[in-house]
């Protein structure tokens, strides 16, 4: 059943990913002052969204793991952290591409930039703590770290925000400051990236599961 679901997701993505690219480049209008550079926004925001979503998944499954100690839950947390790191890296790479022509600098210590960078560091630390062939202890300790680092995210954000802010606020409490066509492209990106995340996650969880089975089988053969 899960096999079917995963391959179905793959086929949906085979259709949606090119469609998303089409919407971004042909349907959504070119921004008046920034020009074509603005297109990076759709990838940038979608990756950032997945990065956060993945971190929430790490947090929730860490709590669940400490509670019920199921291997399944830990695999979900670890896979989510790995995929989140990749997407956060995407955000951190696409940001400067846009910022250099628009802000005239590659990097600045804006709250969102700072928070994203710290988030990346915490993800990497989490993965390092959990390690490759994780033992029971490492899984438990990584879960604890997954929880505290999540608590830390809002603190990083608000402290950096108090300090300074120049990042454009596109989505705010008063609605979205975007052309309707651009808005559609943004939501298309968010949706497609979310599906991509779900697909990668299920794939990664499965490989982790298989790795563990190989370990068990090998131990049986050896003995």
């Amino acid at each position: 059943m899960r096999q079917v679901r995963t391959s179905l997701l793959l086929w949906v993505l085979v259709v949606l990913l090119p469609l998303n690219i089409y919407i971004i480049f042909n349907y959504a209008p070119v921004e008046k002052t920034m020009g074509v550079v603005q297109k990076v926004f759709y990838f940038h925001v979608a990756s950032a969204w997945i990065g956060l979503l993945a971190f929430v998944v790490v947090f929730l499954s860490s709590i669940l793991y400490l509670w019920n100690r199921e291997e399944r839950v830990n695999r979900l947390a670890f896979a989510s952290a790995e995929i989140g790191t990749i997407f956060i890296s995407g955000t951190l790479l696409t940001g400067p591409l846009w910022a250099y022509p628009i802000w005239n600098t590659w990097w600045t210590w804006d709250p969102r930039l700072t928070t994203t960078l710290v988030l990346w560091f915490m993800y990497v630390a989490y993965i390092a703590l959990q390690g490759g062939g994780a033992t029971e202890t490492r899984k438990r300790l990584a879960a604890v770290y997954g929880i505290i680092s999540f608590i830390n995210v809002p603190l990083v954000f608000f402290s950096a925000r108090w300090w300074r802010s120049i990042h454009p606020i596109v989505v705010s409490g008063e609605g979205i400051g975007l052309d309707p066509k651009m808005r559609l492209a943004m939501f298309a990106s968010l949706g497609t990236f979310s599906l991509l995340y779900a697909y990668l996650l299920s794939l990664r969880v499965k490989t982790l599961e298989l790795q563990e089975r190989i370990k068990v089988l090998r131990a049986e053969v050896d003995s």
Partner: protein
Amino acid sequence: MPNYWRKVFLVYRKDLRDEFRTFDNLLATLVFGAMLVFIFSFAFQLADVETQQAFPAVLWVSIFFSSMLAIQRSFAKEKDNGALDALLLATGDRGIIFLAKFFCNLTVLVVFEIVVVPLLWIFIGVNTLGSFDILLFMVSLLLGSWGLAAIGTMLNGITIQIPSARLLFPILMFPLLVPLLIGVILCSHAALIGSRASVLGWMYLLLAFDLLFTLAPLILFDYVLEG
């Protein structure tokens, strides 16, 4: 409840006594801190940087790095001879162990600062023109050390359980310390120019940060020191 705090105090006293009897760790931390301070101020002099502006940054980077050395041993010493199990049996509550180790690390950090901060002050040649707010400076040092000790103690409890993972300690610790770093640097900078009102919000934020990372481990420590 008095019994709880009595146990905390007893473990704290034990740790502190150990810290001052095996003087090498404290000494190494002090020398390391003094050396950092020397290297920073010297390097800034060579590059002709306005060192006075850099004072809060240099101060806190030095304290952050040295605190790693200071805190690294707080659980490691319990690893030998199964002392940790004995400690768990004796106290019966992991929160007690956390609090005791936390107070011990805080004390060590304060001792460290008493030596190193004046040194840095002299090396950099801080000239405050009479507007120096010493109370704010002390409070920001205390709030910063509190947060460092709390997070450090918690993470040290995590890293000692993983063999061959010494390097993990700073990697886990520094991302968590970012809000603290911003807060304490701004506060100590404000102390130098004597503008207490401008950082009042930051003091509350630091206090909230410290309380959060002291209370969260009390709950989570049961999972850290399991079995």
